[in-house]
């Protein structure tokens, strides 16, 4: 059992809670203002781009306020209350008051999240102002109302000072997600996707709600400030450190398990990940902001925020690690076989979220959160590039029908942006994605836990797959001969017919082989179609995000002794208390958070404990991970180049693709036959869920309905019928003979008396 000296500092230092200045309320209230103004715009039927400018201005203001807050309050923990929301007391003792203010909790974890949420939201609003312009006067205002409401909800989620505020934000972002996925509401597929997202999220929300209630019963408070300070929680943590994990009550350990279910729902982890790929039905800016960069990282935030509660549970974090890793692998395999580039990005989001979960669960909260940040930039960039392609090619997203965009006029910014995003996602050395991913994987080999090193290898393998599918998209769509086929959205997006190309409805035989004559705009049918490259707003946003995605790597080198800037940010928060779980001994102990810096001390100290500091192939994971993961990543890219690369890539050695629809992969896919097809069909998980849950529930509902009609109501009707029946039976009694009446009256009174006596005795 090892107790780090940093524990005491971490436990005490983080909890001096002050009160924040009132202007911090601008961060949530400006997006709310945008909601109100946009609603007014809707009421007055504004048919210009005004809602976009309102939203951009308010969100930018919110971002500036966040920057000021960052400068003024960094390193402190403070609370500011807007108004009192819930307050009910039934006694004066501890826990006899149910309080939840509409208040905001500002610490570095919050600020970190808010910086990239408001920053990205502003940029993406700028992008959307151009992207959504087809819908000016139609759904434009509706889009920006929901967009601004989303940012408001996100601020409540991240900044809320109690768990009910978190829950408010949690469901609020779910609502906005629902409204925005269903933005093209005439398309049945979009409606179904929106509904699915909300309902699957609700399952997670139920877990979260139970976790919140359990927290209240156990700690008598919902407010972070009190919760993290409570003697009880400190007592449990102490018990865990001293190896008395068994002393923590079972129900207190369950808190983390239920919170985890909530996190899995919102962050699309197995088994609740199925909604996220479908969520791509929404407009692309929404996919970029909500379903890639911000909302889906809420689960990671939840675990980081509640890390002390997770640490007192013996199973919560290992389960999170396993689920995260499994999700990463599963989603990557599905992503490899998709043809819709937006769906590939969606699956890669699920996969990368798996990395983040594995990161926080393997006690590298810094790695997990750093990956959240880098991923936010490069994945938003990737989505926005896909959106630009979709926008320019009338909704075309099939990578078999697009080729050579790099060489087309006006598409260079998109192409470069895509390349930068892909390099990050693939984890090419010296990109931001490389550093953040390495941090997570290295920790898998360091932290002892049930099979964590196996998880580490899985994550490495998945990194290779990620590199492959990422560059598959890049090589197919952006390199090679210029060939394209437009999608079916000739007149904007808000049309009645959905784009039904590609989503798995190609039979196997022709997959990857659309007839080459149909490709190429010069051939036939598409004479009128000219792809329109993005204009200033979109290009500006893509360029900015490209720069930011590159610069995010620099964060790793700021304060290296603390694992980079993110590490220094988390130091003063609850996410900092990093322990190592020695589950084989059914106990937990704290390791030095600064494992890199204080590496030697740490290694020495852990010699007494078996396998405390793992290794990878006999090397120190922290030192060799850079090389190992680079090998996996580059191999993946090489494979993508070989199978999908254009002819002439590296003197013809790697690529040989000469047209959009054909490449070396076709033969490989054929050789492995049903597997790529199964992967393309998402391993039939949706069908399985439908068969296991939806259908039975539907049947049960019908059975209930039948029972209600026939049995429950039937019984009532029977009772209603009884008097008539009795009347018919008793008709002879109505004989008109007075004696008979008297007799029956006496009998009735007797019965009543009898009952009364019986009851009162």
């Amino acid at each position, binding site marked *: 059992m090892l107790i780090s000296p940093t524990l005491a500092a971490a436990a005490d230092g983080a909890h001096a809670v002050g009160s924040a200045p009132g202007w911090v309320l601008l961060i949530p209230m400006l997006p709310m203002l945008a909601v109100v103004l946009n609603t007014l715009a809707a009421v007055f039927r504004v048919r210009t781009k005004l809602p976009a400018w309102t939203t951009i201005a308010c969100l930018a203001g919110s971002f500036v306020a966040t920057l000021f807050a960052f400068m003024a309050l960094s390193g402190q923990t403070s609370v500011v209350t807007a108004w009192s929301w*819930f307050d009910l007391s039934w006694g004066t003792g501890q826990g006899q008051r149910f309080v939840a203010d509409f208040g905001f909790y500002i610490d570095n974890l919050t600020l970190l999240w808010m910086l990239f949420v408001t920053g990205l939201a502003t940029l993406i609003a700028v992008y959307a102002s151009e992207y959504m312009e087809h819908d000016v006067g139609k759904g434009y205002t509706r889009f920006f109302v929901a967009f601004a409401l989303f940012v408001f909800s996100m601020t409540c989620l991240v900044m809320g000072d109690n768990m009910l505020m978190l829950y408010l934000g949690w469901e609020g972002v779910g609502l906005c997600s629902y409204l925005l996925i269903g933005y093209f*509401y005439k398309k049945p597929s979009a409606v179904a996707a929106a509904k699915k997202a909300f309902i699957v999220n609700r*399952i997670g929300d139920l877990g979260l709600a139970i976790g919140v*209630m359990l927290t209240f019963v156990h700690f008598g408070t919902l407010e972070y400030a009190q919760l993290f300070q409570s003697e009880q929680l400190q007592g449990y943590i102490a018990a865990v450190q001293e190896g008395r994990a068994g002393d923590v009550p079972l129900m207190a350990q369950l808190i983390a398990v239920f919170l985890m279910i909530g996190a899995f729902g919102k962050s699309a982890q197995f088994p609740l990940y199925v909604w996220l790929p479908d969520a791509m039905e929404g407009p692309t800016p929404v996919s970029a902001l909500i379903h890639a960069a911000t909302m889906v990282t809420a689960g990671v935030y939840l675990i980081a925020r509640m890390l002390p509660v997770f640490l007192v549970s013996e199973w919560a974090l290992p389960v999170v690690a396993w689920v995260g890793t499994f999700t990463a692998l599963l989603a990557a395999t599905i992503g490899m076989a998709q043809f819709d580039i937006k769906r590939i990005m969606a699956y890669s989001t699920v996969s990368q979220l798996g990395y983040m979960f594995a990161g926080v669960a393997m006690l590298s909260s810094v790695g997990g959160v750093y990956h959240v940040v880098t991923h936010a930039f490069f994945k938003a960039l990737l989505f926005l590039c896909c959106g630009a392609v979709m926008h320019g090619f009338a909704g075309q997203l099939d990578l078999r029908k697009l080729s050579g965009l790099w060489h087309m006029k006006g598409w260079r910014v998109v192409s470069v942006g895509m390349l930068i995003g892909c390099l990050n996602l693939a984890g090419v050395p010296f990109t931001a994605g490389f550093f953040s991913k390495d941090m997570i994987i290295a920790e898998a080999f360091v932290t002892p836990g049930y099979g964590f090193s196996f998880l580490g290898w899985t994550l490495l393998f998945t990194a290779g797959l990620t590199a492959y599918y990422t560059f598959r998209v890049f090589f197919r769509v952006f390199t090679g001969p210029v060939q394209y086929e437009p999608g079916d959205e000739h007149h904007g997006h808000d049309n009645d017919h959905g784009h039904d190309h590609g989503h798995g409805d190609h039979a196997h035989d022709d997959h990857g082989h659309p007839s080459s004559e149909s490709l190429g705009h010069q051939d036939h049918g598409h004479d009128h179609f000219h792809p329109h490259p993005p204009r200033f707003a979109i290009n500006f946003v893509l360029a900015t995000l490209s720069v930011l995605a590159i610069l995010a790597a620099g964060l790793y080198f700021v304060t290296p002794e603390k694992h980079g800037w993110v590490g220094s940010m988390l130091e003063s928060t609850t996410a900092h208390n990093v322990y190592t779980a020695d589950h084989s001994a059914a106990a937990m102990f704290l390791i030095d958070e600064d494992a890199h810096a204080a590496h030697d001390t740490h290694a020495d100290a852990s010699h007494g404990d078996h396998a405390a500091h793992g290794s990878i192939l006999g090397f120190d994971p922290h030192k060799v991970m850079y090389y190992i993961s680079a090998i996996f990543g580059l191999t993946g890219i090489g494979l993508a180049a070989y199978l999908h690369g254009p002819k002439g890539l590296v003197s013809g050695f790697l690529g040989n693709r000469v047209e959009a629809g054909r490449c070396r992969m076709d033969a490989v896919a054929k050789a492995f036959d049903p597997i790529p097809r199964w992967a393309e069909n998402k391993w039939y998980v949706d069908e399985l869920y439908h068969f296991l849950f939806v259908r039975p529930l539907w049947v049960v509902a019908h059975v209930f*309905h039948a029972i*209600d009609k026939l049995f429950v109501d039937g019984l009532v009707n029977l009772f209603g019928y009884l008097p008539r029946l009795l009347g018919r039976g008793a008709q002879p009694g109505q004989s008109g003979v007075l004696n008979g009446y008297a007799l029956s009256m006496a009998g009735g009174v007797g019965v009543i008396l009898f009952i009364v006596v019986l009851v009162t005795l």
Partner: protein
Amino acid sequence: MVLLLLIVIPLICAGLIVFNPREQAKYIAAGGSLVSVVFGVVALAGFDWSRGNVDQMLVSIEWAPALGLNLALGVDSVSLLLIALTILLGPICVIGSFTAITENQKTFYAWLLILQSAMVGVFCARDLVLFYICFEFTLVPMYVLIAMFGSSNRRRASTKFFLYTFTGSVVALAGFAYVAWQHAAQTGAWSFDMAALGETARGLTAIQQAWVLLALMAGFAVKVPLFPVHTWLPLAHTEAPTAGSVILAGVLLKLGTYGVYKFVLPFAPEAVLNYAPLMAVLAIIGIVYAGLICWVQTDIKKLVAYSSVSHLGFCMLGLFAVNAVGVSGSVLYMISHGLSTGALFLMIGMMYERYHTRSMKEVSGLGSKMPVWSTFMVFFVMASVGLPGLNGFVSEIMCLFGTFQSGPWTGEAGITPGATFGMLGPVFAAIAGTGMVVAAIYLLYMTGKIVWGPLREPDGHHHHDVLPTDLSVREIGVLLPLAAGCLIFGLYPLPLMKAIEAPVNDTVAYVQSLNTGETGRVMVWTAAHDEGTHTDAAHGEADHNADEHSGEGH
């Protein structure tokens, strides 16, 4: 005096309607209900909210002194808030019916106003006989509204509604009579004063209380309605005219939960404790069962009607949690459900007026045709789903919270300080919580059909000759107060919460005072008491069950 006015004004207006020309009926009714609103505001302003648990604005007129009968009126904060809800819904129902009711207008509006009087009477009665008279009398106007102004199957629906609820209430009357009789036997004088009878009832033995509880529940459970005595509701709702449905969902169902709050909890605390698990199980069955039934409806009005059964399950659950959070949550639920479900019925009525169908098979995708209507629809659906920031969430989460806290915990500071004494617990709350998921399933299913998707209108649909395609100003005006209510209630429920804190705490105290602290009653479910080993859930559950049996034996 204000209370008396609140009862009398609608009656006077009903009289005016009868003696005035047909064309003026709706304006008189609107005027009368708006005047009631004014006096409602006067009542709210005149009430001393710091003493919410004390009956105020008392009116007492001697009626039959020999029997101890009084026309006693008075309100505590809970009653007053429910009166406020009733009065708020008054003009909304009247104005919302302007175009829907074209025949027999005098009858319709007169009975609507009489109904309002009766409902106000129920909430402010402080004499048991008066309460019962008003309680039963609400059936008559509602019967007329359904039977005369309902849809095709209205005769059957109205008869069933009347007989079903009447039969239940008669049993409740027997329970009341029993308590009154006990009171007379003990004190030597008849009285029907609610407070006095409550005291008597609490002095009864556990078994006697159990009889009282069962008798009262027979009346109130039908009204709520609690599974399995709910089948009158979908029928009555579907057949009733829009205003009838709004009143039915908004207020009449609350007479049942109000009855439980006002009589069952304080009259039979010991029995409440013993029967709480049973009642909670029925409530939870209602939540899930009715919720799933909603999902397979094609008639949206029937869907929303069944959703009331599901929603009021939460309300009952909160009441039988018998702790501050749960019971407050229930009281808030009564108000909140009145706003959002009332609004949903209005929305459906507005659609029905235009399309003359409520079938999701015939109408869908109204989002493109009626954007304003659709916006309101989505808003109220979200309120009904229990989205945080809107009213449904506040009350629903409190009911669940209360249920969760309500035992079997140790309830000790340092182990489970947030727990309270009670017979439910996390298992009940978790299963009831699935109702939140089910609610999302059926309500979004409905929204997905009716609001989203490609537009579909019934064959041969013509535009209404009076109503515009989308909502008229009048209709928006009817919906806006409800929408504002939902939003304010959701974001700033504190005034309501504080207003009912004192009376709820008083009511809860009757049950909580039974907590003797002996381990027979209070369950242990944490490891701290079990030297080193975990007391697992199954163990806790076994203890719990064992206790239920012993509890009944007291």
